[in-house]
């Protein structure tokens, strides 16, 4: 019986959407821990995402029309946006770029932090002369 619950179509319909939600939830801490500042620059974020959405949703529409791929009825909601775009695909082309941006900004923060540390160590007057040699 628990097996039936896990495989219940009601939950299965949301698999794709839940996967996208998981991506957002798992990358959210980057905004704060690494001071990615992606969500906190909403205007720049929107102006980045809109062209990406347009280009990739167009690609998606052509690919579906040409039969390159299609979506499982079982694992998607069937909810369609205007132009017959599955809500999942819209979410995908929002979520994945946001994840990429959070990663990029976190990496940038990290590299900046490492560079600052290197610089500080090099600039350190006395203290540890061999530290500079190692760096």
């Amino acid at each position, binding site marked *: 019986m628990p097996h039936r619950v896990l495989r219940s179509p009601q939950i299965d319909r949301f*698999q*794709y959407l839940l*996967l996208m939600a998981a*991506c957002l939830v798992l990358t959210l801490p980057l905004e704060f821990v690494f001071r990615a500042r992606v969500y*906190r620059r909403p205007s*720049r*974020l929107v*102006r*980045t*995402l809109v*062209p*990406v959405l347009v*280009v*990739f949703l167009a*690609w998606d529409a052509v*690919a579906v029309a*040409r*039969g*390159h*791929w*299609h*979506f*499982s009825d079982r*694992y*998607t909601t069937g909810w369609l946006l205007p132009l017959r775009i599955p809500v999942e695909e819209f979410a995908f*082309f929002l979520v*994945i*770029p946001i*994840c*990429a*941006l959070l*990663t*990029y900004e976190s*990496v*940038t923060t990290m*590299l900046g932090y490492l560079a600052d540390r290197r610089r500080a160590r090099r600039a350190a007057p006395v203290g540890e002369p061999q530290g500079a040699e190692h760096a």
Partner: protein
Amino acid sequence: MPEYTLAAVVSVVLVMVLELAWLRTGMFRRPAFWITAVIVFGFQIPVDGWLTKLSAPIVLYAESHASGIRAPWDIPVEDFAFGFSLMTLTLLLWDRLGSRERDQDHGRARGRASTAPPPPASAGRAPGRER
């Protein structure tokens, strides 16, 4: 060449041309970009893997339109080119808008609280906003 394979390869070429011929952000010379690419590539495997796994696929591919090479696991290799283009276009646009923002008002300090009033010396704003 199968259509999806062709489209995926072309998308990578187009995004490269966009950067090298037009945007010129210098992104491809930046270690942060390539480190991000490796991380995103790593996370694409579980996410895309879940979407494309042949045991219970969420996205179903027509084999005739792809190379038929699926690796790792069941991910069509074309998806990695697709993902690279998606990531790179996003980062290029973001970076481009960022450098434009910096050009327009470099007076605004990054760390300043958002509640703080705008800096009085906003003369640097004048040349911007032409968009």
